């Protein structure tokens, strides 16, 4: 089963567009990433630019409305993520516990949907909808 580990750094919602981690934090992170790789569990990872460089698109009334960042009303924003393949939810949590995080960071662990996780009727719909594509 696959999990996404999302890093939620406090204050990142208002971080400057050019904010980057310190060399020391980056080095620790590299070490952790290497450990995930050596254990064969790492599928993907990325760090994200601060929300001040992003945009939010909302869809009230079926109409897409764009708001440029930063988003002062946001309490939590994502700073980056790992996707790992592990054997249980507990294992994902154990890996998250080993991450080199600082006092003001949180990691949220969420399982990724796989085809067999969907109810049968949804699976059928997903499988049938795309037959006959050119």
């Amino acid at each position: 089963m696959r999990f996404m580990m999302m890093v939620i750094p406090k204050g990142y919602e208002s971080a400057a567009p050019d904010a980057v981690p310190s060399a020391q934090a980056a080095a620790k992170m590299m070490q952790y990433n290497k450990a995930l790789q050596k254990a064969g569990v790492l599928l993907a990872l990325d760090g994200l630019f601060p929300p001040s460089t992003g945009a939010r698109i909302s869809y009230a009334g079926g109409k897409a409305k764009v708001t440029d960042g930063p988003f002062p009303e946001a309490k939590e924003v994502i700073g980056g993520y790992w996707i790992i393949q592990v054997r249980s939810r507990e294992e994902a949590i154990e890996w998250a516990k080993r991450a080199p995080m600082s006092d003001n960071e949180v990691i949220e662990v969420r399982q990724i949907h796989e085809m067999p996780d969907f109810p049968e009727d949804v699976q059928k719909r997903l499988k049938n909808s795309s037959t006959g594509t050119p």
Partner: protein
Amino acid sequence: MRDVHKTIEAVWKIESTRLIAAIARVTRDIGVAEELAQDALITALELWPEEGIPENPGAWLMKAAKRRAIDSLRRSRLLVQKHEEIARELQVQQQRLGEAMDQALDQVIDDDVLRLIFTACHPVLAVEGRVALTLRLIGGLTTAEIARAFLVPEKTIGQRIFRAKKTLSEAHVTFETARGDELRRRVKSVLSVVYLIFNEGYTATSGEEWMRAALCDEALRLGRMLVQLLPGESEVHALLALMELNASRTAARRGSNGEAVLLPDQDRSLWDDAQIQRGTTSLEHAQRLGGEVNYYALQAAIAACHMRARTAEETDWERIVLLYDALMQVSPSPIVALNRAVAVGMAQGPAAGLDALDAIATPTADSALAGYHLLHSVRGDLLMKMGRFPEARAEIERAIDMTQNLREQELLTERLKQIEKAAPST
């Protein structure tokens, strides 16, 4: 909702390989190392539910294993002799052992893990012993889990592991890193064990669905580990590529009613693009390392050909024939020849395919393909395409008789219906 036993299990799956590898560096015997690690796990299972999970569970387990090692050293020495001089020497030995184990965990080096894998896949062991030992020592699977995956009684797996450890110790297999030609030979054995685990999950047609998926995932995880440990070995990257590319089709291999769907009929939009991407990257890596005409690299290249085609009709069969030709050079086998004949049939027409098939397999009673249902189903397919319907029907019927596999029988029966439909009603 968090169960402390499940957490301990998870900690074990993360830590056990490095723990056993580190202990084995000191004990030079993976059987002993595993027992010490298991003892440490039992201690953890007793204490952690009460005291909570320690901050650094890996170091905790190592310390517990160290205590057990020192204890057993004392016991074994006291049994032999009781001299005062010996007692003093024992103390020195205990201290040395303790220091060695402290040091071992401080710097579990990748070589330790690699040595552990090489030892578990040692050519002196029976193949089933290698598989069981690998899943147990490097996969962190319990005997019960391995038994469920292979649909055999737990006792059988327990015996396989016991026998394998005994063989290693009787053959005085040292916990050393292989070099040069020996390294190549040992890598080959490791890769075949990992691929066998993958295929057990990928092609098995009975057993629990999730357990089969677990075997594929475990093989992929082992493949990714090996790439980190042996980054310069082309075939290591190639095997990972092959497994990723094959696994990327998983969602498309079952129809909406659970029936098997063969590659040409698969809904390609269900293939996992991210996984195809990973597989392709690994294959490119293998090729850059100069191994493009090796066993796994060629198979991965064939898989990549299929994955590149957005529809079955776009498949570059000419290239696939060339890749099979190369595969016949490095690793000729009746199965490869059969697959080559299928490719020839697609690239050059069914008559050419039939010629290729006849060239390899005049099915004598003792040929490797005798009794192999796919030979007849392929022949039946080619004959059908050539409009030789009665012969095609006979071949497919023979294939149905020869396979025990229900899903295969379903597919073949479906094929039979197609022949009935295509054949002019006479």
